[in-house]
């Protein structure tokens, strides 16, 4: 049995909203699991059920071999970092860290030892006597993590902890969280709506949509092999391009080009997905892109343009290339780097 086991977990709110549908998931010890999805998809609800802050309507949650459905949050031995940190405003940093330990009846010397160790690890030793209101966003973030670490819980739960930080700090903290988790080795679940955060942090990723796990796997598996239209559109930045097409007898016909010998027996209307980074310029390419806008990122350019009636088609070109508005580019798709989805169900067919 794995460390954390969710079996057919369902959440229905009293007003009838079904937030989580019969979700099953196993997380092994020491693993960093990320739940990613758009807002309102049920990822936070799922996390809060693990924490015990939401009742479980149906299904079982097992943590470390113990059924915890009915266990009080305070007895579950889980620690959570909240989006707004939820630091205790009237306590200084030291007491913020020590509070959970005091409630567990640990003696003063041990508490001091543990708090100081955690503070050192997070480089907040200098602020131990300060109140949270006197700290910057990044420091508060560290304190919130310190409060989780100091208790040495069975599992860390992160509920979008980086979304209140500015872009630069977010990237820095992202790195620190990952390093810290590797150092401490505690099983973690991290909830985010930011797919870059999800990709960079996760050992494994669960892409959630409408209360259902659409796909579960390592970030690179999901990137390379999205199983549904939703996952394909959600993971990857900039977003995958989608084109309407028809698939008949292993031949795909889109607006003005065809691809032959497709490895699929599906016939009918489909959606073709191509990532901007899987396009290459070549003479007599399949696609003629009329450039409308170029975003220069330095390392590469994001070129947006039009193919016939399709607008905002994106192509990622090397940064040293000079492309101007009004140019027409001839593009090819890298070999087998395209995805075909059933238009009605959104399921992958190739």
């Amino acid at each position, binding site marked *: 049995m794995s460390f954390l086991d969710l079996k057919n977990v369902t959440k229905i709110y009293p007003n009838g909203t079904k937030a989580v549908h019969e979700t099953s998931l196993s997380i092994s010890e020491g693993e960093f699991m990320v739940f990613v999805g758009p807002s309102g998809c049920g990822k936070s609800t799922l996390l809060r059920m693990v*924490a*015990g*802050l939401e009742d479980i309507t149906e299904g079982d949650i097992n943590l470390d071999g113990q059924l915890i459905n009915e266990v*009080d*949050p*305070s007895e*579950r031995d*889980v*620690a*959570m970092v*909240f*989006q*707004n940190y*939820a630091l*205790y*405003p*009237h306590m200084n940093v030291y007491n913020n860290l020590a*509070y*959970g330990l005091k*409630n*567990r009846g640990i003696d003063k010397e041990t508490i001091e030892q543990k708090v100081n160790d955690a503070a050192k690890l997070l480089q907040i030793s200098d602020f131990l006597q300060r109140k949270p209101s006197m700290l910057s966003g990044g420091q508060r973030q560290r304190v919130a993590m310190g*409060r989780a670490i100091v*208790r040495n819980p069975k599992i860390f739960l992160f509920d979008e902890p980086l979304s209140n930080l500015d872009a630069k700090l977010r990237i820095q903290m992202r790195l620190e969280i990952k390093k810290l988790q590797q150092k401490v080795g505690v099983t973690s679940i991290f909830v985010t709506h930011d797919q870059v955060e999800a990709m960079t942090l996760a050992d494994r990723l669960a892409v959630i949509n409408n209360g259902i796990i659409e796909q579960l796997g390592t970030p690179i598996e999901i990137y390379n092999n999205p199983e549904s239209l939703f996952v394909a559109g959600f993971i990857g930045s900039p977003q995958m391009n989608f084109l309407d097409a028809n698939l008949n007898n292993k031949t795909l016909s889109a607006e003005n080009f065809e691809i032959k010998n497709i490895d699929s027996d599906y016939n009918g209307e489909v959606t073709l997905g191509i990532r901007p980074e899987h396009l290459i310029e070549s003479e007599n390419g399949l696609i003629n892109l009329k450039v409308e806008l170029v975003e220069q990122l330095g390392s590469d350019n994001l070129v947006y343009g039009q193919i016939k009636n399709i607008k905002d088609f994106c192509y990622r070109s090397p940064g040293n290339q000079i492309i101007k508005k009004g140019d027409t580019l001839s593009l090819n798709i890298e070999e087998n780097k395209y995805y075909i989805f059933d238009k009605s169900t959104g399921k992958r067919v190739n």
Partner: protein
Amino acid sequence: MKIKPLQIVAHIILIIGVLLMVLPIWISFASSTHENVSILTEGMRFTLGDQFSRNYNEVLNEKGGWSEEVTAAKMFINSFIMALGIATLKVAISAMSAYALVYYRFKLAVPIFWLIFITLLVPLEVRIFPSYKIVSDLGLTNSYTGLILPLVASATATFFFRQFYKTIPDELLESAKLDGANAWSFFIDFLVPLSKTMIAAMFIFMFVYGYSQYLWPLIMTTAEEYWTVVMGMKIIYTESYEGVALPRTAERFAYIILSMIPPVLVVVFLQKWFIKGLIQTEK
């Protein structure tokens, strides 16, 4: 800096306000330092006289009342105990009931809150006979318990605490829960320290409310040792002197001045928190 006409008008209004507040107190104090005879013949005074120590000494130490058993000092102590008891219990009870109303999600929380709120329309004076009946049946007349107990519920304070607790983010409770806090420790470790300015403000209001109670102690106490300052003001110097003697106006003024001191002290000590509690919340 140029002074605008509007500012002058504003200051004049403020100065009039200050005079209206301060003058009566000053007249009381000035008059309390004169002899009874001179007040009787010449009216109230704006200047200080020379009888300060005599009058105040007499007020504090002379025995009064029907059987001449109680001194003003004793009445101050009684009022202080009563006000302290009422204020402390009112704050504690309303903080706890607001906690229950906000954090225990039972269906009747809102109706119960409004029921409590409606009691604002039924002050003690309206329910004074039933209250007296209950207290006397319990044998609590002529006791501090009897003076305090019927006044310890407060809809106002419950309302303020409830509104304050509602502004505390849910994450704080959730985080505390994960840190192993139970219902009681969340109240003591979080809500009480977070609302301490509020508690101070409520305490002042309730202290003054308790201190200035008149009707309830008047019908509650027959034994002079439980008399309070405000009721004593009416009784102490009239009943004990019959007709022949001069009205003891100067001593009464001295008594009034002394009676103001305890609430003023409470306000002075708690005012920093009091103002904070009214204008901001520490979050």
